[in-house]
């Protein structure tokens, strides 16, 4: 079991409110991603759950028990660190076995668990090596191995892929998702990469300045962002925000249109613009344009588009894909 509930969890460093008070419900077996720009408090929130930081106020309930004042080891959670945090003086075997040794397990049990974790993670051939003799991806797998042998109530991942190169990152992303499907254990995953968040999560928690901006399924955040911040943070390239005449026409302060929801035409449309840069990726083309009335915008067109610098184009937002925001930046429900 691994249902985690945060009730008014608060963290202050001196006079600085890092987490002003967070309420959050994480169901057993769920893959939850905390996402937000750097410094938004997502790592601090994870460390509060782990017990590596003390809460200033509030409750952390794991399967109904308040663990806010328990030592990290007593919470039954495992953590994978951004830096892997392997013990450099121990072999891979001993790295994975360390937690079990601390728990006083017998040698046979330790051996059995380490071997089976090594098998799942393809580490069997490396058990006698030291972390220094492993590649980044292998080290990350050892860190995961160390986490899974303890059979925790939940896994905590603190930006585990940010030290890996792009190709490896995609692989490990799939491996972690596969692991979650296999183990069905609660996972909390911190990242600043919204692609990781969208692809891996059952539920995304978007944080800004220690506040939860929105909680929901990836596609819900994409199609129904609660405010301008979430709308701008989720989705790549970023959503375009337009005020003026167009917003007035939709009876709101500002409208948001994703780059992929703009139709491009060379003859007519609602927004006249000039192409500044065209990025040709093959499957799609990113057009960075300057609209006559609205300033810089980004357009994502499918396939190869024969446009280049100084070309005049017209853009038309898809009517049912327009997000409307009020003066406070909150989403306005469709009328």
């Amino acid at each position, binding site marked *: 079991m691994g249902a985690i509930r945060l009730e008014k969890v608060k963290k202050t460093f001196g006079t600085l409110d890092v987490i002003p008070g967070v309420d959050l419900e994480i169901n057993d077996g769920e893959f939850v991603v905390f996402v937000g720009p750097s410094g938004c408090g997502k790592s601090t929130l994870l460390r509060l759950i*782990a*017990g*590596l930081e003390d809460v200033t106020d509030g409750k952390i309930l794991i399967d109904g028990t308040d663990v806010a004042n328990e*030592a*990290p*080891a007593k919470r039954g*959670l*495992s*953590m994978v*660190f*951004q*830096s892997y*945090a*392997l*013990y*450099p*003086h121990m072999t891979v075997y001993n790295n994975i076995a*360390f*937690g079990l040794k*601390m*728990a006083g397990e017998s040698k046979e049990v330790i051996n059995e668990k380490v071997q089976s974790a090594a098998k799942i993670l393809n580490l069997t051939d490396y058990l006698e090596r030291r972390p220094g003799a492993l590649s980044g991806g292998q080290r990350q797998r050892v860190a995961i191995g*160390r986490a899974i042998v*303890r059979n925790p109530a939940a896994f905590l991942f603190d930006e585990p892929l940010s030290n890996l190169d792009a190709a490896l990152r995609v692989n490990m992303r799939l491996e972690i998702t596969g692991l979650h499907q296999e183990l069905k254990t609660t996972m909390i995953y911190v990242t600043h990469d919204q692609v990781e968040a969208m692809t891996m999560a059952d539920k995304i928690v978007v944080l800004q300045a220690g506040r939860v901006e929105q909680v929901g399924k990836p596609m819900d955040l994409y199609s129904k962002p609660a405010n301008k911040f979430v709308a701008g943070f989720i989705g790549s390239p970023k959503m375009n925000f337009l005020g003026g005449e167009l917003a007035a026409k939709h009876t709101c302060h500002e409208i948001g249109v994703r780059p992929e929801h703009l139709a491009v035409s060379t003859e007519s449309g609602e927004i006249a613009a000039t192409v500044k840069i065209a990025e040709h990726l093959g499957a799609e083309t990113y057009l960075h344009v300057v609209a006559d009335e609205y300033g810089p915008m980004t357009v994502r067109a499918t396939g190869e588009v024969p446009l280049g610098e100084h070309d005049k184009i017209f853009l038309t937002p898809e009517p049912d894909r327009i997000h409307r925001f009020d003066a406070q930046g909150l989403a306005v429900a469709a009328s």
Partner: protein
Amino acid sequence: MENKQTPLGYISFSVFAWIVGLLIFFPIFWMVLTSFKSELEAVSIPPSFISFDWTLENYAEVQERSNYFKFAMNSVILAVGSTLVGLVFAVTCAWAMAFNPTKRTKNALLWMLSTKMMPPVGVLVPIYLLFRDWGLLDTRFGLIMVLFLMNLPIMVWMLYTYFKEIPTDILEAARMDGATLPKEIIFVLLPMAVPGIASTMLLNVILAWNEAFWTLNLTTSDAAPLTAFIASYSSPEGLFWAKLSAASTLAVAPILVIGWFSQKQLVRGLTFGAVK
């Protein structure tokens, strides 16, 4: 790599370094040489360099007149004992300062170091009186305490700079893995800091071995280490240079040998953190 030094600069620098090295080494060389001379030759002017009658009689007499091994054993016990006791305190102290620093950690460290700037003679009387009243005069226990406290600031500083280099993540990982604080320190922190701990211990052994002020003032015979052994040869009935040299050679020999074999470790320890 491009070497910007001119050959002339290189040569003059080397010559200078050799001169300084020889100047530092000369007294030790002269002491060893004198220890093989007769008392008469030891004070003869002009002094003879190699062409004298080499003799071992000073060593024989020194051994006859006083028990070298008793003093040597005391030196070993004091140096090793104060180092081990110091290590227990210094490791815990450096752990707290390196991994749980507060606003005042830097000040506390500087304050600790500042105690080393006070001349020891300034506290001789109070410490002597405490030793007398507590019956610690001429005891190994009492001296171990004084030597350990004297070198504690340096041990804390050295370990602190080493511990600072160890990522906190790894200790947190151990905490998540269920290690209690003592286990976290013993199984994770200490093995990672072995080079630092080794050079700290080494330096402390050398400092304690060579310490002469407190060992001379607080001991008479039972706990007297090699420093007292040497001092006993500069006696009121006249200076016996050759025997004094033989006694000194015997006293510094063990630590010279240790120092020679561990100089790499030692230099690394002393300059650690200075260059990044």
